[in-house]
């Protein structure tokens, strides 16, 4: 029998039982849609986060911390009481391949203006060096970031100036704001405060990142030292002369050695690698859960094919009496499940893609959807990614599962003895 005729015979059998075939297909659709939606969302999320990180964390930079700073922390670094100080940058600057380094002191505090209060991260940095390292993100949208700032100069993140994402501003360039910080280590805890002058508002950076943030304010490092009453820094950012792996590795090692291995050195490549492996696990996990639903659909297909086999035993007898080979009977049955699998996979991929986009819109526009426009941080923009691998994988998986689960009933159908099948009532 020609393959086209086998296909059309299989299709005619499916068409006869539309509702049943439809419900069986629905099982595959749900399984495939779940896989495609979950994978394209996680891949989209990974792409977004990676892009954010690359934007806020230049590849030729290293972050040196004690491992317990408020910036990046790594499990296992331990709390040995080791401290990094602002002038440790001098030690780092002497290491080969280091182009420059800058210390960061940061605390959570408040900004007051016009009788209103906002929680912010107060970051003390050297403006010129910070702007040089984060040249694409530490950029003023309005006003100027001075190279040699006055003591009271303040640069504010976009979300501090415009927290509601509309024309109503909390503060703007040239405003004089009150900066507050509670020194909890003092006995009794003491509120420190000073008046700052906003010289610039940064352009929007995005949801997150290691570099400049939309919800921070930036003050000169010297002011931070006197305001926070310490020269202990939270981290030191190191700019390298180039960003090849060998330089990153050797310099990281040299920095660790310079501080008796008491510091943690993070590179953007290391962060991206960790992130990538975390996402692989997440994808495997989510894909696995979705795959279970497809397996359930597969069992549904097997069930339906066995019922169909019983109903059509006599028909199989007729086909064999007309001279159909056992392999052709097998192909007819496998063809039926393959058609169901293919239809389910195609519809499933399409609906999974639609679902992923709906989720992305809800995720991103969360504030708008739920009337929570005052949300300071805003949503993360995810563009679902449907890679050819996921597309083809879902197609093959959908058809494959359907065919595999139909193997047993199809094999039984092909093994029916014609004389017994014809006698079957």
């Amino acid at each position, binding site marked *: 029998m*020609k393959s086209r005729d086998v296909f059309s015979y299989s299709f005619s059998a499916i068409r006869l039982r539309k509702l049943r075939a439809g419900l069986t297909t629905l099982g595959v659709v749900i399984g495939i849609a779940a896989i495609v939606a979950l994978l394209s969302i996680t891949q989209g999320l990974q792409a977004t986060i990676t892009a954010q990180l690359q934007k806020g964390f230049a590849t030729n930079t290293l972050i040196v911390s004690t491992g317990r700073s408020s910036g990046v922390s790594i499990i296992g670094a331990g709390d040995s009481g080791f401290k990094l100080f602002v002038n440790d940058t001098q030690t780092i600057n002497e290491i080969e391949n280091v182009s420059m380094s800058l210390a960061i002191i940061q605390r959570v505090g408040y900004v007051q203006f016009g009788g209103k209060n906002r929680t912010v991260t107060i970051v003390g940095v050297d403006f010129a060096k910070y702007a040089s390292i984060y040249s694409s993100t530490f950029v003023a949208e309005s006003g100027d970031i001075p190279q040699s700032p006055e003591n009271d100069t303040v640069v504010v993140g976009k979300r501090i100036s415009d927290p509601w994402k509309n024309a109503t501003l909390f503060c703007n360039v040239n405003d004089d704001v009150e900066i507050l910080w509670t020194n909890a280590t003092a006995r009794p805890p003491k509120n420190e405060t000073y008046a700052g002058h906003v010289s610039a508002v940064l352009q929007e950076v995005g949801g997150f990142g290691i570099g400049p943030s939309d919800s921070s304010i930036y003050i000169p490092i010297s002011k931070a030292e006197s305001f926070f009453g310490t020269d202990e820094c939270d981290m030191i950012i190191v700019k390298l002369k180039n960003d090849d792996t060998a330089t990153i590795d050797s310099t990281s090692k040299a920095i660790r050695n310079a501080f008796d291995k008491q510091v943690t050195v993070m590179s953007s490549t290391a962060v991206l690698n960790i992130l990538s492996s975390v996402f692989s696990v997440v994808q495997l996990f989510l894909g696995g859960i979705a795959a279970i639903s497809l397996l359930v659909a597969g069992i549904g297909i097997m069930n339906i094919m066995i019922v169909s086999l019983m109903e059509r035993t006599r028909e199989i*007898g007729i086909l064999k*009496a007309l*001279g159909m080979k056992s392999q052709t009977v097998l192909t007819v049955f496998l063809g039926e499940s393959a058609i169901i699998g293919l239809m389910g996979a195609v519809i499933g991929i399409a609906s999974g893609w639609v679902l992923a986009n709906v989720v992305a819109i809800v995720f991103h526009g969360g504030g708008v959807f739920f009337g929570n426009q005052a949300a300071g941080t805003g949503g993360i923009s995810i563009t679902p990614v449907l890679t050819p691998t996921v597309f083809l994988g879902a197609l093959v998986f959908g058809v494959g599962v359907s065919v595999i689960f139909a193997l047993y009933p199809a094999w039984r159908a092909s093994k029916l003895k014609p004389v017994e099948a014809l006698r079957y009532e």
Partner: protein
Amino acid sequence: MTAIVEAVNLKKTYMLGKVPVEALRGVNLKVESGDFLAVLGPSGSGKSTLLNLIGALDKPTEGKLLIEGVDVSTLNDNQLAGLRRRVGFVFQFFNLIPRFTARENVELSMSIADIDRAERRKQAEDLLETVGLKERMNHKPAELSGGEQQRVAIARALANNPRFLLMDEPTGNIDSKTANEIMGLIKRINEEKGVTIIMVTHDQRLATQAKRAVQMFDGVITREIVN
């Protein structure tokens, strides 16, 4: 002249649960090209079993069955299927595929034999014309009377220019007037087209319309009648 079908001491034993049932107990039979043989016998005499063996739907337990000189017991599954494509079967209960129209049912046996779509469509129409059913070829079995369904089944059996037709009680499920018409058609096919026919029946009157008849009883041929 070589016999189209030759059975030598043909035996078939079924297991009915754990009880062996001897359906054929040594049948000797020779059918030559152009013959029209009626196999007569009461229910349980083994006539349908004999027909199933000749049609390669089943394998004998013992003895020899030669179809066009080839021993059926030496054939594998695929070769048996190939043999069945060269045999036309007509059943008592028609055995048409309900979801297909009359024409599609006739076409089905040709599509199994790898015949092109256009060719089989034309042949199906010609065959349905031969059995007098051209006008109703786009009707499904449920829309046809018993006699009409059997005509479709005969057209289907003739589809691949079979070496011989095997008919199992072809008029057993239709009224006597239509049965006569069907018998007329069968005789015409035998006489005009020269197709060899082996027909199983329990009806003495139908057997008289064949060229010769054999009487079966308890799994053996008890006598032969030449009409």
